[in-house]
């Protein structure tokens, strides 16, 4: 595959980089990334990956665009209110870059459908806002041998880490089980600064790009935390847990689990 003149110009700032070059840009154009959640985190991930020329982007979400989403979900506009989030997200991505093929999944992921959805992708982005989905994505990615980037945001804080099969811990090594219902508020109950989704989602996009081009160090075995009020980034080293029930030496979780979600937390 060789570049068209338009592609050379569109991706010139990538191709100039020694770490990317024509080779890296071709890797991006051939890559397939799945974004679960077309909300606050998913928005910057989808927009930056589309702009970067990631050739195939899948996006999964069952919801419609709501007025209260627009404070942080910058992929949707006021004109998109009531529209399926995946449709709105697809339109924005294709408006940014028509090179990108977008697959939409207008559904919540469950133990029944997740394996089938993730199987065609090289890298998965967890852009969900609830623990049942986060554990489900983790367990499915471990079982399917897929790398993924976890992230969570609340109030003025955010965190992320990346799982790559065979390298470092999975999400469950670090957070063994979902917290009890209502022990941790969702961003709906607690609030979140919109720009937090931009910061952390952009870092997830960066992890996906580094994974695809094969350069730099990923957040494997490290959890990055960001506190906007004190303006501090920290990385905490995390070991793999050999007793982990899903990725450990003797896994006890061999089937996907749909944890229950409190009624009021159901919306992304």
């Amino acid at each position, binding site marked *: 595959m*060789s570049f068209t003149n338009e592609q*050379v*110009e569109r991706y*010139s*700032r990538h*191709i*100039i980089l*020694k770490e990317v070059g*024509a*080779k890296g840009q071709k890797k991006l154009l051939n890559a397939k990334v799945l974004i679960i959640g077309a909300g606050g985190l998913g928005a910057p991930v989808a927009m930056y990956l589309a702009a970067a020329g990631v050739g195939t982007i899948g996006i999964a979400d069952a919801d419609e665009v709501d007025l209260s989403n627009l404070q942080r979900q910058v992929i949707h506009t006021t004109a998109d209110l009531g529209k399926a989030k995946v449709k709105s997200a697809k339109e924005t991505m294709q408006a940014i870059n028509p090179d990108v093929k977008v697959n939409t999944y207008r559904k919540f992921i469950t133990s029944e459908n997740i394996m089938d959805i993730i199987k065609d992708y090289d890298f998965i982005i967890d852009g969900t806002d609830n623990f049942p989905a986060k554990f489900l994505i983790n367990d499915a990615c471990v079982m399917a041998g897929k790398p993924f980037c976890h992230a969570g945001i609340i109030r003025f804080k955010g965190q992320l880490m990346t799982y790559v099969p065979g390298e470092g811990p999975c999400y469950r090594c670090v957070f063994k089980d979902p917290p009890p219902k209502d022990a941790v508020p969702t961003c709906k109950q607690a609030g979140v600064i919109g720009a937090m989704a931009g910061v952390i989602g952009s870092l997830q996009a960066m992890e996906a790009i580094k994974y695809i081009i094969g350069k730099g160090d990923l957040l494997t075995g490290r959890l990055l935390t960001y506190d906007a009020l004190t303006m501090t980034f920290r990385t905490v080293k995390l070991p793999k847990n050999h007793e982990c029930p899903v990725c450990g030496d003797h896994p006890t979780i061999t089937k996907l689990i749909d944890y229950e979600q409190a009624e009021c937390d159901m919306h992304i």
Partner: protein
Amino acid sequence: MADYKIDDTIDITDVVCPVTFVKAKVALEELDDGQILAVRMNNGEPVQNVPRSIKEEGHQILKLNDNGDDTFTLIVRKVEDE
């Protein structure tokens, strides 16, 4: 006469910075280690910057020929890194 055989030629006189260098870089990436690329470029900014950028990427500049029509042709040998 030249002691090299040109494997590919590109013309970047119709584009401006940074697409000049980007086109040369893309063409070089498509060659094998040791192959030779000829790059025709305009006098002025391209001649000042493109050879330097190519050199910074680790490739070997063999020659810069003045074509006499306010363009230059840069002869580069590809050096594969890694």
